């Protein structure tokens, strides 16, 4: 099996440079307490991912320090993954949990299966690099080998814009001069490899397996096999989970949380009316709020039990919005529902108020919607009832019972 690894070095820095012109030529440190990612210039000054931010600023005092915007990086990386799926049917993101790690390593790395592709690997890689640059402006390096580890090392040790193909059977020879720091092992194992005087992967490969395994246990066996060019880790293609999403762009950025909850009600109403929700309930809800300063706030919520009840969802949404750190006016709200399950039956009260009347109204509107394509009935909602600007106080939204 031939695998290509695509590596976009300093992905978070590149994304920030594309987003903000004012930092295009500056040294950049991204992170809060620790450095998440840093530009090449900052790295040349001694800063590196994982380092304490205060230490990195001391080494590189002219750098611009940016807070990490993980949802934005994740979105951009997903765009890249979507693009890569046009090139190969099996694409794997480097590490699905990478966005939970506080380190820039791994972000911007993806693997593609080359099995069944008619093109030769090198022209394929060159075409991929050029198309990616044209489409997104990212300059990537591509490594091609028989296993994921060797392909990743090839991509990480090759200059951006170039491709490196390791011939089948030549993995061990290629890896021999490479620093052991690129091996996927714990910090403690790396430290102990250093204490044994093992600097390169070739030095590790020259030791007997039994000795390495005796010292480092199962992890030792794995890194020894990798050093020999034996990599049995399969490519795990991305699994696309079914989800539905709606978003609402505000005509003027909102500054109140109440208005955000009102907008959320409208979106939930639309989502629950979609055919995908017919007779089903959602287990997860993801909220995404775009702020006017370009930042994004995201929150994933898992319901105790799958639900299709708008009021229950709204109650959870309200409590999430109330505690959200919204530091700028809100430009857009998006809600995504996923984790679909069959809806559980619920016993209604025997004396259920004006339910019948409501059902009649809902049915009439459904018929009108079927006839005209959209609900002709609008609902007045309070947006910012306390605003001094009259047109900000109320708005119309499609009434979709």
């Amino acid at each position, binding site marked *: 099996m031939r695998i290509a690894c695509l590596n976009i070095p300093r992905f978070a820095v590149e994304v920030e440079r594309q987003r903000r012109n004012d930092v295009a030529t500056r040294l950049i440190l991204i992170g809060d307490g620790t450095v998440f990612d840093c530009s090449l210039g900052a790295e040349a000054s001694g800063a590196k991912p994982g380092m304490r931010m205060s230490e990195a600023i001391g080494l590189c005092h002219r750098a611009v320090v940016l807070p990490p915007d993980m949802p934005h990086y994740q979105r951009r990386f997903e765009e890249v993954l*979507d693009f890569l799926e046009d090139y190969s049917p099996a694409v794997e993101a480097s590490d699905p949990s990478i966005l939970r790690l506080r380190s820039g390593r791994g972000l911007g790395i993806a693997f593609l299966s080359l099995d069944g592709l008619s093109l030769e690997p090198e022209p394929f890689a060159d075409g991929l690099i050029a198309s990616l640059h044209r489409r997104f402006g990212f300059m990537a390096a591509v490594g091609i080998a028989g296993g994921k580890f060797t392909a990743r090392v090839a991509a990480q040790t090759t200059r951006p814009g170039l491709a490196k193909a390791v011939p089948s059977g030549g993995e061990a020879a290629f890896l021999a001069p490479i620093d052991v720091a690129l091996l996927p092992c714990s910090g403690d194992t790396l430290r102990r490899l250093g204490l044994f005087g093992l600097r390169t992967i070739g030095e590790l490969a020259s030791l007997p397996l039994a000795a390495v395994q005796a010292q480092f246990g199962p992890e030792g066996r794995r890194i020894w096999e990798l050093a020999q060019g034996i990599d049995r880790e399969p490519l795990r293609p991305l699994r*696309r*989970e*079914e*989800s*539905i*999403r*709606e*978003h*609402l*762009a*505000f*005509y*003027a*950025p909102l500054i109140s949380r109440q208005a955000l909850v009102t*907008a959320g009600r*409208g*979106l939930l109403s*639309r989502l629950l009316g979609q*055919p*995908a929700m017919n007779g089903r309930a959602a287990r997860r809800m993801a909220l995404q709020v775009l702020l006017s300063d370009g930042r994004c706030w995201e929150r994933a919520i898992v319901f105790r039990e799958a639900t299709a009840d708008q009021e229950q969802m709204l109650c959870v949404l309200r409590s999430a919005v109330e505690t959200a750190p919204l530091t700028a*006016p809100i430009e*857009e709200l998006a809600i995504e529902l996923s984790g679909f399950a069959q809806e559980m039956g619920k016993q209604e009260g025997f004396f259920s108020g004006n339910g019948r009347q409501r059902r009649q109204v809902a049915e009439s509107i459904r018929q009108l919607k079927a006839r005209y394509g959209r609900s002709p009935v*609008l609902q*007045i*909602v309070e*947006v910012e009832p306390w*605003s*001094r*600007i*009259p*047109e*900000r*106080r*109320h*708005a*119309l*939204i*499609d009434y979709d019972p």
Partner: protein
Amino acid sequence: MVAHPRAAARAHRLRPLNQPKPIRVEADESGEPQAVVLGRECLAVAAVQDHWRIDDEWWRERPVSRLYYLLLLEDGQVVTVYQDLIGLRWARQAY
């Protein structure tokens, strides 16, 4: 099963209510309205019943700065108009 289209959904906008409507107003040198054109009629202002100023959203690119007038017209109608102090345009809007 409905496959996730992986495409951005259409944004559904909130439609604002009570949007200001442009109107022609004749004002004196001090800026106080003297006559208002409603439809095809030009109606003289009988009295300025009230006026107030709002300045808001000064932190945005397009701040809001308006001087509102509550006017009693010669035919007995009461209308609220304002002058946008940045674009110097007049508009009618219920307050």
